[in-house]
C-alpha cells in the first residue's frame, strides 16, 4: 500500500494504525533517534520511523536485540536527543537489566528524553505468553502510561517524551495488540520544523555501584513528583453519575469494553466509568476520591490484576473499606484479553441485569452447525517455505537414528513446527536464543547418563539476537550438540525486517553483512552448509554431524524465505503439476498428508492430489517426495 500517512503534513484527520499513531506522536515530539527489535505487535513502529528517517533527519535502527536498542536510545538521550525504543513484551524482559539501572540514574542534564514503547499481546495471538508488562514499571521505577485508543496513542507518545524531558528519566508507554493493531481516525498536529541538534553527552549521567542507594532515593522522589502530576492528568477521565452504585475502574482495552457493556445493559444512570491512562506512579488520590462516592468498585482490565491491586492498596492505605470486585472476586478472568463479552458478563452479574446478545433459537442453530461442520484452521508454513524442507529432512534424520535425538527450538517462523500441522520435532522451546542454551545444558549431561544426540535450531535473526552468547558458551564449556541455523535471509515472522545478515539496515541503506557462516567458523568448530531443498543431502549432513559425536557442530541451512524471493522475482521457477495417471491417491498421500504444503488439494473420492496453481510458488520441493514420480516440474522461462 502506498498510504504513508504517519508523516503526511497534508491532511489533519487521517486513518492510522495504533502503531502509526505512536510514530506520529513521536514525530510531532521531534524524535531524533529510534531503535528496536521486531516483535508482534510492535514491529510497525521502527519500520515506519525508518521509512521517514531521511525526510525527517532522524536515525532509526533495527538493533540486534532489545537491550542494545534501549542502550542506544538511552545514550542518545543522555546526549540531549529525543529518543525512543520499541519492543514487544518479551523484549522488555531482555532489556530489563539495563532499564532497571537507567531509571535510577536518569538521563542526565542535557534535556534529552526517552520513551520505552512496549507492546503487550494479551491472548498471546503472536507470542509464547501473555506477560503483562505493567508490573515491570513499578519494578523498574519507571513512569507508565497506557493509552486507550488510537488518538490517545499519538497524544500520549508526545506526552511521554515531554514528561521524560521534564524529569530526565525514561517513560514507559504500554500498548497492546488491540491498540497497536487497531486503526482509527487521528487528528494530527503540525510536525515541528527540523532543527539542527548537536549531540553533547552529559559526562555525569553514569552510575557507580556505590551510589546505588542515593540514586534509589532520588528515583523515589522523582516518582512522587510525577504522581502529583498524574493526579490532575487530563488523560484520566470520569463519566457517569456523581454517586454511582458501581464504579468501573478501567485502563487500556478495558475502557471501551466497559463503555460498551454499560450502554448495552442500559446502566448509564447507575454505573460510573473511570478511565485511567497514567498507571504508575498510581494516581491514588483521584481513585480514592471517586471511590468514596461509589457503592462498590469493579476493576476491568486484561491479564494480571495490576490495576486491581493498586486500587486495593490505595483504598486500604486510606482506610477506605469498599468491595473491590474484579479478578479477585472471580468476575473477570485472570488470563486472556478483555472483551466486550467479558465486560458484559461481569457487569450483568454484578448489577443483576440480564443480557442476551442474540436469540436463543439462533444461538442453538449456530451451535448445532458449528458442531457439525466447523473445523479448525491450524497455522503452517507458506507454500515454498524452506523451513518445511528443513524439518522434513530433520524428521528423516531423527527417524533414521531410531528417534533417539533430542531437539530444542527457538522463536521464529520455524516455531510453527510445534503445531500439529508442522513436523512436531521440537521437544523444548522457550525464549529467543534458548535453543542453544538449553541444548548446551542437555549436551553436558553425559556423566549423569543422558547421552542422546541434541540438536538445537534457530533462525538467522534469532542467531544475532541471543543465540550468539549461548553458542560461545556451548563451545567454551565443550557441550555436545549440533546447532542448526535456518538462514532464510529474513526476520520473516514479523514482516521481513533487516538484520545484520542481510547487507542493508532499517533505513534501507547498504550495511556490512555479517555472515553467519564466518561467525561460526571463528568459533573453531565444524561448520557445514546445505540447501534444505536438497532433502537427501540435508538429511545426510545432519546424520554425519550426529555421528561425529563430540563437541559443538554447526549446520547452516541456507535458502531465502519464499516470500522474500517472490518480492524480488514474481515468476515461478517451475510449473509444478500432478500427473493424475501416476498419482496413487489416498493409498499414498505423502505430498498433502505428510509434506503438507497448503498449495495441494485432494480429490474427494480418489484422494488424488492436485496443485492449486494460484497458491503454488513453483518451488518444486514436492517433486522430491513423491515416490511414484507423479509430480512433474517444468522450468518456466523467465
Amino acid at each position, binding site marked *: *500500500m*502506498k*498510504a504513508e500517512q504517519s508523516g503526511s503534513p497534508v491532511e489533519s*484527520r*487521517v*486513518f492510522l494504525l495504533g502503531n502509526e499513531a505512536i510514530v506520529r506522536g513521536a514525530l510531532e515530539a521531534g524524535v531524533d533517534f529510534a531503535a528496536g527489535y521486531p516483535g*508482534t*505487535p510492535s514491529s510497525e513502529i521502527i519500520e515506519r520511523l525508518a521509512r521517514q528517517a531521511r525526510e525527517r533527519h532522524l536515525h532509526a535502527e533495527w538493533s540486534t536485540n532489545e537491550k542494545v536498542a534501549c542502550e542506544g536510545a538511552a545514550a542518545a538521550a543522555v546526549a540531549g536527543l529525543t529518543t525512543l525504543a520499541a519492543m514487544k513484551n518479551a523484549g522488555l524482559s531482555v532489556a530489563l537489566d539495563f532499564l532497571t539501572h537507567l531509571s535510577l540514574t536518569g538521563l542526565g542534564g542535557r534535556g534529552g528524553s526517552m520513551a520505552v514503547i512496549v507492546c503487550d499481546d494479551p491472548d498471546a*495471538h*503472536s507470542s509464547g505468553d501473555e506477560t503483562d508488562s505493567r508490573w515491570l514499571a513499578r519494578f523498574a521505577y519507571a513512569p507508565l502510561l497506557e493509552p486507550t*485508543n*488510537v488518538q490517545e496513542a499519538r497524544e500520549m507518545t508526545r506526552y511521554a517524551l515531554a514528561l521524560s524531558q521534564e524529569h530526565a528519566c525514561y517513560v514507559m508507554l504500554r500498548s497492546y495488540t*488491540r491498540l497497536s*493493531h*487497531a*486503526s*482509527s*481516525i487521528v487528528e494530527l498536529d503540525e510536525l515541528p520544523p527540523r532543527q539542527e541538534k548537536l549531540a553533547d553527552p552529559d559526562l555525569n549521567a553514569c552510575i557507580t555501584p556505590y551510589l546505588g542507594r542515593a540514586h534509589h532515593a532520588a528515583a523515589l522522589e522523582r516518582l512522587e513528583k510525577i504522581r502529583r502530576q498524574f493526579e490532575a492528568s487530563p488523560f484520566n477521565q470520569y463519566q457517569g453519575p456523581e454517586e454511582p452504585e458501581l464504579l468501573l475502574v478501567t485502563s487500556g*482495552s478495558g*475502557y*471501551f*469494553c466497559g463503555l*460498551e457493556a454499560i450502554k448495552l445493559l442500559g446502566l448509564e444512570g447507575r454505573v460510573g466509568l473511570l478511565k485511567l491512562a497514567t498507571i504508575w506512579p498510581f494516581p491514588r488520590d483521584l481513585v480514592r476520591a471517586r471511590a468514596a462516592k461509589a457503592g462498590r468498585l469493579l476493576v476491568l482490565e486484561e491479564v494480571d490484576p495490576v490495576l486491581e491491586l493498586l486500587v486495593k492498596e490505595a483504598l486500604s492505605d486510606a482506610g477506605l473499606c469498599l468491595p473491590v470486585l474484579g479478578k479477585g472476586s472471580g468476575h473477570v478472568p485472570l488470563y486472556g484479553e478483555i*472483551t*466486550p*463479552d467479558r465486560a458484559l458478563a461481569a457487569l450483568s452479574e454484578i448489577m443483576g441485569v440480564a443480557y442476551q*446478545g*442474540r*436469540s436463543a*433459537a*439462533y*444461538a442453538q*442453530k*449456530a*451451535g448445532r*452447525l458449528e458442531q*457439525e*461442520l*466447523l*473445523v*479448525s*484452521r*491450524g*497455522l*503452517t*508454513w*507458506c507454500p515454498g517455505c524452506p523451513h518445511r524442507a528443513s524439518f522434513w529432512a530433520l524428521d528423516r534424520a531423527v527417524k533414521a537414528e531410531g528417534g533417539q535425538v533430542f531437539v530444542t527450538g527457538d522463536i521464529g*517462523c520455524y516455531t*510453527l513446527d510445534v503445531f*500439529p*500441522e508442522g513436523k512436531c520435532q521440537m521437544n523444548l522451546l522457550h525464549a529467543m536464543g534458548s535453543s542453544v542454551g538449553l541444548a548446551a545444558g542437555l549436551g553436558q549431561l553425559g556423566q549423569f547418563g543422558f547421552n542422546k544426540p541434541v540438536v538445537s535450531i534457530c533462525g538467522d535473526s534469532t542467531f544475532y539476537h541471543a543465540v550468539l552468547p549461548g553458542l560461545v558458551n556451548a563451545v567454551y564449556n565443550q557441550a555436545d550438540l549440533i546447532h542448526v541455523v535456518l538462514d532464510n535471509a529474513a526476520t520473516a*515472522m514479523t514482516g521481513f525486517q533487516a538484520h545484520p545478515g542481510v547487507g542493508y539496515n532499517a533505513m534501507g541503506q547498504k550495511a556490512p553483512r555479517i555472515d553467519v557462516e564466518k561467525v561460526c567458523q571463528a568459533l573453531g568448530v565444524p561448520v557445514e552448509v546445505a540447501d534444505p531443498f536438497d532433502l537427501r543431502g540435508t538429511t545426510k549432513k545432519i546424520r554425519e554431524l550426529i555421528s561425529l559425536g563430540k563437541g559443538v557442530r554447526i549446520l547452516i541451512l541456507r535458502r531465502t524465505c519464499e516470500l522474500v524471493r517472490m518480492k524480488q522475482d514474481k515468476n515461478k521457477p517451475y510449473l509444478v503439476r500432478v500427473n493424475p495417471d501416476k498419482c496413487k491417491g489416498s493409498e499414498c*498421500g505423502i505430498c*498433502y*498428508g505428510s509434506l503438507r504444503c*497448503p498449495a*495441494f*488439494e*485432494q480429490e474427494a473420492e480418489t484422494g488424488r492430489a492436485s496443485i492449486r496453481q*494460484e497458491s503454488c510458488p513453483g518451488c518444486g520441493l514436492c517433486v522430491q517426495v513423491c515416490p511414484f514420480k507423479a509430480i512433474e516440474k517444468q522450468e518456466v522461462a523467465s
Partner: protein
Amino acid sequence: MSLAHDPYNLIVCGVGGQGNILIARLIGRILARQGCFLTIGETFGAAQRGGSVFSSMRISRQGYLGPLIPQGQAHLILSMEPLETLRMLSLFGNDQVQSISNTQSVLPVGVLAGRSQYPPLARLQEAISELSARAWFVDATVKAVELGAPIVSNIVLLGALLGSGALPVSPEEVRQEMESTFPAGKLALNQKALNLGMEALQAH
C-alpha cells in the same frame, strides 16, 4: 448517507494472505473521509501463516467504539472463504445478519493431513444461508483467475459489497480510493475486478 444500524458492525474475514486487511482498510479510509467514527480491529502476525484472520469494523456516526465486536452483534460478514464465513457466523451471527462469501474453499492443512474433514461445499453454503438473514455467494476467485490475477479476488469481493448496497459507499469513492492506494499500472485490473464483483451481486 445513513447507516442501516448504528453502530454498524462489519466483519471482513478470510485466510492469512487473502488480502482481507487491504479491503477493510480501503473501506475504512472511505468511511473516515465521510466523517464516520470508525475503529478497525485486527490481529496480524502469526495468524497470517495460513490461519483464520478477520478485521472487525465498528462504524458509527455517534462516536468511537472499541475494536472488538460483542458476540452475536455483527451486521454483515464479508468473507474470502466459506468455512470462515461459518466460523464468523457462529461467533457473531444473529437473526438479522447478512453475509457475502467467496465460493472458493481453502483447505486447512489439518484436512490435507487427514486429521479433519472439510464440509461438502453445498452443505456449507446451506448452513451459511441458514445462519444469514440474507446470504450472497460470489465466485470471486474464479473471476479473478479469469482476469489472470487471482490476487484481486479480494477486490471482486469488495465489488460485491458495493453491489449489495449494504454500506453507504459509492463505486466512485472506491475508484478514487484505489487511485490513491494502488500503483497506476494496477488500476485498470483492479477496476475490472471491482466491476465484476458489482455485476455478480446485481445479477442476484
